[in-house]
């Protein structure tokens, strides 16, 4: 596992709030990715428990902590 920051963080907004990488760098692409992931999560072909197991397995494989 590698915990290093891989893409530099964007500067915070004028009010000091952190801005996500996608919002700061590629807002249209980030919105499209969000829409895709939302659609996947809303699929109903699998039961919720199996869906969650698959999601967690993918998160571990991708070293994703969010």
């Amino acid at each position, binding site marked *: *596992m*590698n915990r290093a920051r891989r893409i530099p963080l*964007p500067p915070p907004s004028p009010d000091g709030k952190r801005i996500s990488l*996608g919002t700061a760098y*590629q807002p249209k*692409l980030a919105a*499209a990715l969000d*829409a895709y992931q939302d659609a996947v999560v809303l699929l109903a072909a699998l039961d919720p428990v199996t869906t969650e197991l698959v999601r967690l397995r993918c998160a571990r494989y*991708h*070293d994703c902590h969010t």
Partner: protein
Amino acid sequence: MGLHRESWAAVDPVILELCRLRIAMLLGDQEEQARRSPGATAAGFDEAKAGELARWADSPRFSAAERACLAFAEQFVVQVSGMTEADTGAVLEHLSPAQLYGLATAILALDGHQRLRLALARVLGDPGVAQ
């Protein structure tokens, strides 16, 4: 799909086409290897590069930026959790952080698309997907 459209809009189409084709080679997706993306063709994609893609690391046809992006794509496909600062740093010598974010997201979309196609064809035997 919006994700694919925005991916091609966010990344240099020639670099993304090289990455798409390399992903297809690594995954064994022959249909994806055979086709060409319209954006890349319009941008003057060099077919000679496609012919030498298996040896991009030492072929003089590829620029340093293309090599860094192809190495990034390979690491993403083979073991994305093993991605290091050295991998992203090599890309950041040629692309901005915003462009790297775009490349990473685009590769995620392309890799996922090709894996899903292959799974449908080979595991589920979907006749609507060419093997």
